[in-house]
């Protein structure tokens, strides 16, 4: 175990860096041509697969269009070369751009439409490659292929096949470093949040469409680079390299290696490339072999090799008692929050024939807890969802600090300073408590992809601030000691606190808490109540939707009672407690807790 501790003390990027150095040194270690060629093909495949990982694993889009972008890159490089521009750098840039354009052009319609559309359009894209290549026959060589491509140069220096090996390795190293930097930034977490729950993503201020498009489009770049490398490797480009078979091979590599991983692409590509190269030695059984390889590989490596490796590392960590990250407790002071006045007037919403809200109104002020109560189906959650922009209201106005927030997109409303928690906590799997909290800051400080890749000064500043704020919020809810735990494994009470922390890091003007106490035991409710009071005292506007009448009475400054979609009564806790109508309508019918799947009819 000591050895393990020592191994873990090395920064995690050191291992891939070591692999890169090893690959660069391979020709000097007496590796034969067969091996270096295998490495080249594997790295080219790995580039395609890493693009797939970005869009499939991280952005959650089942899209296999990478092969089309690969083709775009390869033909771009080949045509450039034929036209006399043989510089590899020019090829790489042009091919990357060409792939990016293909990615954006095909991604926009596919993503706009949502759900399976992108899978289908990208799938079709692969089918169309031969048609497009044939139609552009005079440039692409059509079905004959494009041969006689002059060898690549670099700054005027003629690249021999041996030199080209280093170029392939270098491009792969640079891309994987960039890929790792994207994934290990807030964008990487954002992708995972989005993949798990678009609802959650928009509630922290991400534009679902733009984030998905970014994932898909950036995933196109490595495929384009791979295309440029491939065209210059064999100096021959033909349709054989861009078939559906290749697309499924890349998909298999992505899944076998683990889609939600950086280096899984490398492993998956290695495995599949080895499988295909070996399969030919099975002669007429090669197809059977490749099929069995996918089948058995899929069964054994369910969740991907990278996933298995991660679990192993975590187990060894526990066994060796390795702890990661800073254990220092941050101060639990909560800074001043500038709240905003939220005003809802005459809001109406019907689902089909069901009138969920009929002229509901509400006014919530900074530094006060406004509770929203009412029986099931009285429209509480619907009202919250209207505020957040998940539904479009039929009539009425909602203003924040006097400004109409209209029916803007959810992520825009979030950026105005409206944060929320959910009835069923939405915690994406596979990310740590710390990252869950940090994901709440997505909209707070913008940070570009370019900054993330290059680790710019600004990016690092934003990242440090994200980390500090997350640490503060965690300390506030008392979860600092669990910062590196995988968040979904926490018990319900802690997940609720975690959601509050995530909502808080964005320093919202208005905090919406949706049944935040349900399912908690008494002690947990106490902690939570204390926390909510502190948030209120910091100046935030808190809106609490709650069934626990006792909690509401003890916490709220103002209570609004909803019944059948409109306001039954509003006032201070004392007034509401005394109101006979409230007693009849709400407290009298005290079967709240028996209504089994709480809130099922309202979703989440």
């Amino acid at each position, binding site marked *: 175990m000591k050895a393990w501790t020592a191994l873990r003390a090395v920064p995690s990027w050191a291992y891939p860096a070591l692999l890169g150095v090893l690959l660069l040194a391979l020709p000097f270690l007496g590796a*034969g*041509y*067969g091996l270096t*060629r295998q490495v080249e*093909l594997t790295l080219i495949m790995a580039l395609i697969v890493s693009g797939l990982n970005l869009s499939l694993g991280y952005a959650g889009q089942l899209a296999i269009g990478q092969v089309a972008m690969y083709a775009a890159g390869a033909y771009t490089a080949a045509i450039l070369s034929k036209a006399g521009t043989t510089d590899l750098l020019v090829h790489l840039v042009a091919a990357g751009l060409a792939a990016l354009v293909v990615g954006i052009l095909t991604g926009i319609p596919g993503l706009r439409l949502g759900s399976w559309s992108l899978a289908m359009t990208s799938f079709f894209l692969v089918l169309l490659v031969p048609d497009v290549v*044939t139609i552009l026959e005079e440039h692409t060589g*059509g*079905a*004959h*292929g494009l*041969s*006689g491509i002059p060898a690549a140069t670099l700054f005027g220096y003629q690249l021999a*096949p041996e030199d080209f090996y280093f170029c392939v390795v270098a491009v792969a190293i640079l891309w994987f470093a960039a890929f790792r930097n994207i994934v290990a930034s807030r964008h990487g977490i954002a992708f995972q949040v989005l993949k798990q729950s678009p609802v959650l993503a928009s509630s922290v201020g991400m534009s679902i469409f733009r984030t998905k498009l970014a994932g898909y489009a950036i995933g196109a770049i490595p495929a384009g680079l791979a295309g440029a490398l491939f065209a210059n490797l*064999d*100096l*021959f480009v*033909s*349709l*054989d*390299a861009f078939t559906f078979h290749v697309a499924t091979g890349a998909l298999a590599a992505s899944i076998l290696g683990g889609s939600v991983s950086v280096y899984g692409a490398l492993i998956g590509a290695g495995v599949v490339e080895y499988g295909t*190269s070996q399969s*030919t*030695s*099975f*002669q*007429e*059984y*090669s*197809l*059977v*072999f490749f099929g*069995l390889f996918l089948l058995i590989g899929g069964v054994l490596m369910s969740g991907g090799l990278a996933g298995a490796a991660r679990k192993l590392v975590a187990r060894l960590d526990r066994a060796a008692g390795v702890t990661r990250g800073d254990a220092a407790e941050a101060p639990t002071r909560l800074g001043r929050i500038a709240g905003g006045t939220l005003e809802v007037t005459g809001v109406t919403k019907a689902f089909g024939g069901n009138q969920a809200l009929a002229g509901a109104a509400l006014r919530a002020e900074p530094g006060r807890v406004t509770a929203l109560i009412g029986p099931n189906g009285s429209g509480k959650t619907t009202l919250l969802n209207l505020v957040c922009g998940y539904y479009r209201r039929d009539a009425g106005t909602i203003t924040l600090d006097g400004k109409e927030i209209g029916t803007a997109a959810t992520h825009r409303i979030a950026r105005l300073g409206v944060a929320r928690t959910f009835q069923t906590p939405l915690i994406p799997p596979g990310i740590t408590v710390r990252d869950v909290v940090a994901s709440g800051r997505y909209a707070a400080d913008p940070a570009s992809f370019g900054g993330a890749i290059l680790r710019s000064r600004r990016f690092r500043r934003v990242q440090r601030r994200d980390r500090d704020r997350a640490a503060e919020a965690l300390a506030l809810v008392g979860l600092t000691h669990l910062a590196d735990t995988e968040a979904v494994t926490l018990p319900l009470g802690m997940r609720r606190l975690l959601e509050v922390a995530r909502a808080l890091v964005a320093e919202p003007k208005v905090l919406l808490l949706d049944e935040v106490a349900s399912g908690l035991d008494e002690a947990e409710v106490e902690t939570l109540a204390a926390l909510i009071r502190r948030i209120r005292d910091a100046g935030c506007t808190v809106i609490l939707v709650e069934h626990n009448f006792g909690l509401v009475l003890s916490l709220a400054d103002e209570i609004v009672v909803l019944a059948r979609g409109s306001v039954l009564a509003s006032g201070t806790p004392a007034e509401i407690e005394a109101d006979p109508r409230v007693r009849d309508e709400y407290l009298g019918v005290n079967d709240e807790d028996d209504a089994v799947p709480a809130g099922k009819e309202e979703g989440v």
Partner: protein
Amino acid sequence: MIGRRARWAALAAALLALPACGAAEEAGTAGAAEAPYVIMVSAGSDAGPVTDQLITGVNSVKAGVETVNEAGGINGRQIKLIESPDNANPTKAVSGLRAQLAKEKPDAYIVTAGTQVSSAVAPILNQNKILFMNSANLDETADPKQHPLAFNLAASPRVVVEDYLPVFEAEGYKKIGILHGNSPYAKTFGELAETVFKENGYEVVGNVEYDSAALDMTAQISALRDAAPDVVVFNAYGAPTGYVLKGMTKLGWDVPMLGETSVASTPLVTQEPPDGLLGLPEVKNLKIEVNAATVYDPAAEATNKAVEKMKALGGIKGAMVNVLGYDGVLLIAAGAKSAGSTDAAAIAKALEDPKVNGNAGTAVYGSYPYSADSHEPKLPRGTHTFVPPAPIVNGQMGASK
């Protein structure tokens, strides 16, 4: 249930075969004192629809190697054959060739199936000064200025097309309809057919392309029928051949059809039912273009010798056009003998001599008329004839089993 058992048996066999298979199989014997003459051939056992062509092609090369080695090899050097297990995939073929170059430079390379493999390896072979016998129709390997050491073995598409003209004349066909696939060869055929027919005063009323992966040809055939040609000239290999014939029958279109050489390689039209369509209404209007060697002739010694050799190696699938690899090996041997050297350039030079390329003992074509200007055999008109479909056994019609 028999099917399933066989399948599981095959599966078990596949798994058992795992450790038994090596990478590149090395065949042939190197018994002579001198270093063997190394020929590499693009090979494999599963090339999808072109599997039969590939396997037969590689076997033909093996048969050629056997014939030459029995006669003392290439100027005394026994031939060593190296198979590149690339399944006619260009990327794998390049991998295999480059790996072989790093180990041991082959003296010659033969492609028996797969135009794209030829396109991919041709520049590498040219750069490394390796003799290249190419069964595919490729312009650059036919041009000695670009690729001085490469030779095309197949009849040029122009000859294939020109051999239609006597039939048109004899039958009085004036308006021609053309139907072709979208493979590189099929497209070349389609374009060339239109040009050549027009040059010779025939009217091309329709020239329609189909996607070789499509499952139905009704649309294309309807389009052609609307143009009302006297005869339909078509190219197809494998399943599309059947779709074309079925489509014609379905439409009840009673028009003469002249299938190009690739049609003759499709067992579907040269096998009797239940496996094929021979004798059915689908083929009653069909004539197929074959080269002389495809029709059995007891007097054609060289051809019959090659067929006998091939039989021992597993027979010939399709027609004799798939056996060009045999001739490739024999041509190399003849060239080397005449040049008195196994140097690639010397062999190439010798092969341009009609005395050499006409007396190599080749099986498919009696002579391969190469010249200093063209490395594509300038076969005379009349190399191909049109015959009604008949059973083809071991690449030939009319041979006794």
